[in-house]
């Protein structure tokens, strides 16, 4: 037993590389995110530039996705819109997860009255239908990208809290936690350096799922005109163009492309989440001889060869 043991991180990466759904999802969102970041280079048009001469044109070589009623290039609006939607999705999910994790860790480990208080508060938030809560906050705080992010975070932290709290509740009884206490480790050390790393897997998976949820939520909100105002393009408010039946029928390029973008990105994120969930299963972690992506592909296409010993 003299081989160097790869670290957990390296094992995870290797295992994930062998997971077909995960890799596919990763590819998709990588493409979309890159195009969103390099929107200027790719599109060549200013998304807010209104060209009165080129209104409502269907897709062509000049305008890959056509133009809208105000002459704005749809392709660049989708790209820039992607930037904002993805930003909202990732940041809101991250923030919400952060709040939920910290509160969940405290509630789960300390228990007692703090736990009861936190649980009651989270239940209070959860009794309101999320849409209603969001609408209330939007009315109070106003619209805009950063506001939407904040609102999503403060209406969505509860699920992460429950997740982390239940993980902590069960981990708390584990023997190694007892051992830590027997060695005199402080509560802070136990929570942050021992318990939290062991709960990372469900947190990470929840993070990816929430990204998808928030993108769709933003889309729905902006579609209704309640999320981000139309001046800042997002996939959602691009879709809002489809409110008018005439658009749906005659100017399909105005809503189909944003819809496809949303579907592609959300599906990609879900695939990554699935892949992560498979890979982060503790049983897989011990498997050092995991296959590479190419090997998995080969096996799926050509069938595997059974190895026998002796």
């Amino acid at each position, binding site marked *: 037993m003299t081989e160097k*043991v790869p670290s957990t991180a390296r094992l995870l990466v290797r295992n994930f590389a062998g997971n077909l759904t995960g890799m596919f999802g990763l590819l998709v969102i990588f493409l979309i995110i890159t195009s969103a970041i390099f929107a200027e280079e790719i599109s060549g048009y200013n998304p807010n530039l209104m060209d009165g001469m080129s209104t409502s044109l269907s897709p062509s070589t000049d305008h890959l996705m056509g133009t809208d009623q105000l002459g704005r290039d749809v392709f660049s609006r989708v790209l820039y819109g992607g930037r904002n939607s993805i930003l909202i999705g990732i940041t809101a999910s991250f923030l919400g997860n952060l709040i939920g994790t910290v509160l969940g860790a405290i509630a789960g480990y300390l228990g007692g009255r703090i736990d009861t208080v936190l649980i009651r508060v989270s239940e209070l938030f959860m009794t309101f239908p999320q849409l209603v809560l969001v609408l209330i906050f939007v009315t109070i705080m106003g619209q805009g990208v950063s506001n939407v992010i904040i609102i999503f975070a403060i209406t969505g932290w509860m699920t992460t809290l429950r997740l982390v709290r239940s993980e902590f509740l069960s981990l708390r009884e584990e*023997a190694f936690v*007892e*051992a*830590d206490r*027997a*060695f*005199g480790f402080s509560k802070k*050390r136990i929570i942050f350096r021992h318990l939290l790393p062991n709960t990372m897997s469900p947190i990470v998976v929840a993070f990816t799922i929430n990204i998808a949820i928030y993108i769709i939520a933003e889309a729905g909100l902006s579609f209704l005109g309640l999320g981000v105002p139309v001046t800042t393009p997002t996939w959602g408010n691009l879709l809002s163009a489809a409110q008018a039946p005439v658009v749906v029928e005659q100017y399909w390029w105005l809503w189909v492309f944003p819809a496809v973008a949303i579907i592609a990105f959300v599906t990609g994120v879900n695939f990554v989440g699935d892949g992560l969930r498979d890979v982060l299963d503790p049983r897989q972690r011990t498997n050092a001889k995991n296959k590479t992506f190419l090997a998995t592909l080969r096996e799926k296409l050509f069938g595997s060869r059974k190895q026998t010993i002796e």
Partner: protein
Amino acid sequence: MSREIALTEPLYQAKGIKKYFPVTGGVLRRKIGEVKALDGVDLDIYRGETISVIGESGCGKTTLGRMLAVLQKPTGGELSFDFGDGLKNVVGLNRTEELAFRRRVQMIFQDPYTSFNPRQRVGAAIDEVLQVHGMKDPEERFSRIKESCEMVNMRVEYLQRYPHEFSGGQRQRLAIARCLAIKPELIIADEIVSALDVSIQAQIINLLRQIQRETGLSFVFITHDVAVARYVGHRIAVMYLGSVVEILPAGALPQNAEHPYTIALLSAVPDMNLQGKKKEIVLQGEVPSPIDAPSGCAFSTRCPYVMDICKIARPVLRLAYDTDPSHQVACHLEKPPIGA
């Protein structure tokens, strides 16, 4: 094993330890009863000795181990440890005092598979313990870790691995090394060999004896295996339903046991060599539940020698009939049952 045990001042003393767990029930979740896991336990542990604690499930030996390690507060009674000048209480200490106590009293758990953080390399785990106890110099920590590994026959290179890469026996050795690293004075071993194969168990037992020879540590060895308890310990404490019913020197087993439960326990132990020589006492019935412990002597419901007084008054530990000063029994019988 060192036979020089100072039978003067104990290193660690438990007096009248009670541990009750409330039982809640009903819609309003009120307390409807108590599980008396420990109901008045007295135990003195001396320097350099191994005291084995035996008993069957529900007797409270694991709870006793946890009380001694102060992982939870006892419901009643006193725990006192000798830090150097006399016994001092160790319950409800502040952070500095607690750390000083934990440096001296360590615990090894039963399940080797879960007592290490699965995401932490074992070397880092031991290193962390040293850091928490104030060793700031990494060089010093490393040499201490090396020393502990050598004591348990573990190669230092293996320390960069994760717990799941070791077998159960190796993990227990690592757990021992982790305790030894901070040079404790007392180690509480809670069923540490029960989950291991017999040959590995023998390795660990030999290791413990060797460590005791070399360092003069005290051990509290909790087990359900009577033969192992006798082999490992200098003295043996027998527990039944939350109290200690007999404390006797290991050599007094099996012939000079006096408590009826101990005698019955011994007769139930399958043994190759004592074939046909022992009288088999098959106990009737089962251990009563700790929620409704019988009044008087806990063993009165199953004792073949039960008398009226046994059902009313709880017997206390007193010197045994065989006049050995280190042998105590808690029984109303004046003389041990004949033919034992």
